């Protein structure tokens, strides 16, 4: 049951890619016109975060396996890239026990991110060989264990990570444009994978347990590939992220982000790259809105007390409602596709008149 590349699927994926790229570019253009520092920050961080949601979607959406551990690679990517690119003067002071090579190098952001991506891939390969052999129910826990293991290591390996104190003075290189390029590349990879023969294979196993069984032991390398690819992109996202905020600590890569990203995928549609992006928007908006009640507000003369947990409560309820009413999410498994050729044809007709 070996399918090859399908021209139709590739064309469809290309159209989706173009559509998404156009849409996202538009967002960045509008943001740059508005020219506000806070908006620039928001857009950059949104684009980078969304890149990671797409990375997450690459695994969960295609394989159908719930993973609680992809965020571990966000952490690995972020720390790797940061350690590679923090200026040596800072590293001498903050991380004296770091191996000399690391301490004295500063590779520049791009190389740092590339190495971070590769490193994430290696780690994912090692762990993935174990995980992809497990049965589906155990995989969820194994990925959860992965998250806890990585967090524990990062939190306690003070010589390398400064533990709870976190890293600082990472060159803040990411701009909305760079983030946009990153996301466009990542979305392209995701869409390409979704349409590829190996992607289709794992989607087949997702749909039908019998199909999964007929794949038999061939399922393992397919799952492994999916896992490693997703982890690498996640690591890339982490690397970008590290270069967008100057300083961070281990608390970032744990439950909260796992929860947020799963929410984004579920609400937007697990099986769709557009869904991951759409979900990212929805959850970001809801979170921002709910931040007000969480901090307590004053409406006129009425003081509304702080509603602790308002943000997470709303998002969690949103997940439940989505799962009960529309489990496939906003987009289902469909991608955004502007009918470009149609538009061009219509345009041609008008020009000829």
């Amino acid at each position, binding site marked *: 049951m070996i399918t090859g590349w399908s021209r139709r699927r590739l064309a469809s994926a290309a159209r989706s890619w173009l559509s998404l790229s156009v849409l996202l570019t538009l967002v960045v253009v509008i943001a740059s016109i508005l020219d506000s520092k806070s908006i620039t920050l928001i857009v950059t961080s949104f684009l980078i975060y969304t890149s990671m949601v797409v990375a997450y979607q690459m695994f969960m959406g295609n394989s159908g396996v719930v993973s609680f551990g992809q965020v571990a690679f966000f952490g690995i990517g972020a720390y790797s890239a940061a350690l590679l690119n923090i200026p040596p003067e800072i590293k001498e002071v903050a991380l004296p026990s770091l191996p000399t090579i690391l301490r004295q190098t500063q590779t520049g952001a791009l190389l740092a991110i590339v190495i971070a991506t590769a490193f994430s891939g290696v780690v994912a390969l090692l762990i993935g060989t174990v995980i992809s052999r497990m049965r589906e129910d155990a995989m969820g826990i194994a990925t959860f*264990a992965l998250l806890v293991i990585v967090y524990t290591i990062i939190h306690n390996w003070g010589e390398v990570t400064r533990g709870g104190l976190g890293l600082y003075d990472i060159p803040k290189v990411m701009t909305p444009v760079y983030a946009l390029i990153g996301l466009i590349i990542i979305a392209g990879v995701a869409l390409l994978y979704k349409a590829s023969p190996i992607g289709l294979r794992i989607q087949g196993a997702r749909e039908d347990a019998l199909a999964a069984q007929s794949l038999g032991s061939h399922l393992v390398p397919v799952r492994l590939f999916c896992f490693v690819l997703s982890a690498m992109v996640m690591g890339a996202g982490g690397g970008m992220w590290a270069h967008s905020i100057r300083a961070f600590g281990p608390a970032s890569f744990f439950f909260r982000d796992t929860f947020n990203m799963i929410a984004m995928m579920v609400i937007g549609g697990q099986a769709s790259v557009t869904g991951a992006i759409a979900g990212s928007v929805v959850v970001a908006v809801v979170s921002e809105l709910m931040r007000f009640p969480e901090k307590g507000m004053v409406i006129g003369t009425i003081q509304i007390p702080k509603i602790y947990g308002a943000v997470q409560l709303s998002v969690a309820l949103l997940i439940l409602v989505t799962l009960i009413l529309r489990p496939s999410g906003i987009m289902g498994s469909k991608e955004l596709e502007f009918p470009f050729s149609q538009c061009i044809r219509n345009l041609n007709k008008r020009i000829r008149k």
Partner: protein
Amino acid sequence: MTAELFFQQLINAISLGSLYALLAVGLAIVYGVLKVLNFAHGDLVAVTGYIMWLLWMKGEIPFPVAIVAGIVGATGVSILTELVAFRPLRKATYAVMLISSFAISIIIQNLIRLLIDPRPQGMRIPPVFDKVISIGSFRIGSLAIITLVISLTAMALLLYFLLRTRWGMALRAAAVDFEVARLVGVPANRIISLAFAVSGLLAGIGGALWVIRTGGIAPTMGLYPIIKAFVGNVIGGLGSLVGAVVGGLILGFFDIFLKAFLPSGARPFVEAFTLTAVVIILYFRPQGIMLKR
């Protein structure tokens, strides 16, 4: 390591292991009927803890009453979560149910933050749990003994329930073959609610012991209990109650003896070691340790 030290650590390991076993079995009961690992199970520990805290620290209600109330509360919340989240999703896929149990877990944590208190709190533990009992040259903590006794009693009662009562038999049958259980007349909704009730009860007892052991509560305190319960189940073999018990015990041994033998620099990494060891076990035996299935 002296013989005394080894023996003391052994008792600690069995005691902690029995607590983990209790938590793991609770999870396994729901897994049996729904075939999904309920993330929110760990948060029932938090529910128990907060009820105990409210009554004992804030309300000056006697500790035993607070414990009972905590256990009842955990049971009630468990039944409620089934009604609200799992029942509407009865026909859903495994992945959907797992994610929704995750969402429920977050909801419970945040409801605690919202309705009770968002900050971690300390609990004053009655001195009876703090005593040291000397047998010859061996010194054993009363907490270890109490934990062991209560966990074992709870599991023994569970065994009695499962083996000797009509509902227990129905629960076992439903875990083996839910559809055929329905065909012989077992009411689907009620048996699932029962599973959640039993599970909640066990989580409540385990939760009370956990809180007494750690002396504090926090909204996110359910994280480690659920990890232990998850891992205990997976090591022992999903779907096996005995496996869950064995898995929990093994985990207890790992935790105590790793802590005892690791150099102090490596101590913070105990969790990571344990979990890595688990993952390695699973590589060689993905179906878990138990021989059946």
